[in-house]
């Protein structure tokens, strides 16, 4: 299988890439690692006229900190996050989720930014950025803007990015309070898309939850932010009863479909169980952070 013909430019700077996008608009497609895009090109689901390869740009990968933010460069590969043993505990969700993405070979080449922009509702990073309540930094030739994760995913494979924009960075506000997350995924085999996966992130203030994020994978037209469930957790002490109620609300937010991976009813129940399980893990991790 080979893709339909396209023109190809490997860009040496972000400005060069942005100029190409400004010129070609919708006819151009940005490629980072290519691990989602190349399969689509081969199946001819995507047939761009121009491929703008940003995979070699310097300075757009790695985890850093500035001005109260923890930043993840869009070109950070899954494998680099998976091996991110030195990440702050607040970002412990990242290596745990990365470990579940595709398989080790794909993780060596694919990037977090590419995956987020691909916006597959079965993608893992979408739920993670929703749970982390991350900000996504988009650049175009005209300037920079910040898109909240909650506003980013607009439909299957559709994001708030304009055709002339490139996602450059994912930001998470640094917290001085005990904060941790967890990722649980059900898959039939390594490399399969999720049957269901759930990302959770919590911040504790004393005995109460001061922030909560819950992102759901493969149970809707986009990655789903379980907003009502998050609200039901914030400001409360996370007792077993509260967690059970939050898990029920999250399951209610899921809109899975019957398919070869399971019935909608089954998947909703997996959401409930994984939210419960994830919250208990995250809670234990956050308490460990406090100790």
């Amino acid at each position, binding site marked *: *299988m080979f893709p339909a013909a396209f023109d*190809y430019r*490997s860009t040496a700077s972000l400005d060069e890439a942005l100029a190409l996008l400004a010129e070609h608009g919708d006819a151009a497609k940005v490629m980072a690692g*290519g*691990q989602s895009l190349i399969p689509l090109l081969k199946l001819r689901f995507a047939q761009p006229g121009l491929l703008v390869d940003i995979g070699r740009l310097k300075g757009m990968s790695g985890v850093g900190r500035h001005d109260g933010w923890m930043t993840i460069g869009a070109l950070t590969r899954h494998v680099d996050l998976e091996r991110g043993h030195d990440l702050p505990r607040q970002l412990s969700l990242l290596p745990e989720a990365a470990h579940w993405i595709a398989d080790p070979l*794909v993780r*060596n080449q694919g990037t977090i930014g590419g995956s987020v922009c691909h916006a597959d509702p079965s993608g893992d990073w979408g739920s993670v950025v929703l749970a982390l309540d991350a900000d996504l930094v988009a650049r175009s030739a005209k300037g920079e803007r910040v898109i909240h994760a909650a506003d980013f995913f607009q439909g299957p494979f559709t994001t708030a990015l304009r055709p002339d924009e490139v996602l450059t960075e994912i930001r998470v506000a640094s917290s001085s309070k005990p904060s941790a997350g967890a990722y649980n995924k059900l898959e039939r085999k390594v490399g399969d898309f999720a049957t269901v996966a759930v990302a959770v992130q919590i911040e504790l203030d004393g005995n109460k939850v001061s922030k909560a994020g819950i992102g759901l994978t493969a149970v809707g037209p986009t990655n789903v932010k379980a907003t009502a469930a998050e609200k039901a957790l914030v400001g409360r002490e996370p007792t077993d009863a509260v967690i059970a109620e939050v898990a029920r609300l999250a399951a209610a937010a899921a809109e899975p479909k019957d398919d070869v991976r399971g019935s909608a009813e089954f998947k909703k129940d997996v959401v409930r169980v994984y939210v419960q399980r994830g919250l208990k893990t995250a809670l234990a991790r956050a308490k460990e952070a406090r100790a």
Partner: protein
Amino acid sequence: MKVSMKVNGIERGGDVEPRVLLVDFLRTNLRQTGTHIGCDTTSCGACTVLLDGEPVKSCTLLAVQVQGRSVTTVEGLAQGATLSPMQAGFHEEHGLQCGFCTPGMMLVGTALLDRNPNPTEDEIRWAISGNICRCTGYMNIVKAIQYAAKAKASVPAAVGAVAGGE
């Protein structure tokens, strides 16, 4: 479009359309057919090569993406007539049946031992989790990689002796 890369240490080049996949460039342009095409859908790992030392799927990379980089294929493992420790392991432990997945398995095994010379069985199984053996010969593939780890830990001369001792 002109493309050049190092393949098994030798500078190679060609003139390809941007849509040409690395695996096709290797097999068709360079006539290096040790890299196999299995599923062609990023699932099976038969097309595994090492890109700057790390295993990737060459059916899911464009040849032009690899411009200026370094690729190792299965043809690059042996040193002349001497098998690499990984190849010797697959020979000694019957790590292959039909042989179709073997180039990929040996390359992920090689990359694993470069990073982690003494992996646990779990770590080996995790490392090969992106490569499918349709003969289901995983038990012996794991043993072959364990054999290679032990062989590498001993003196290199002994590895040659084992490999040549048919």
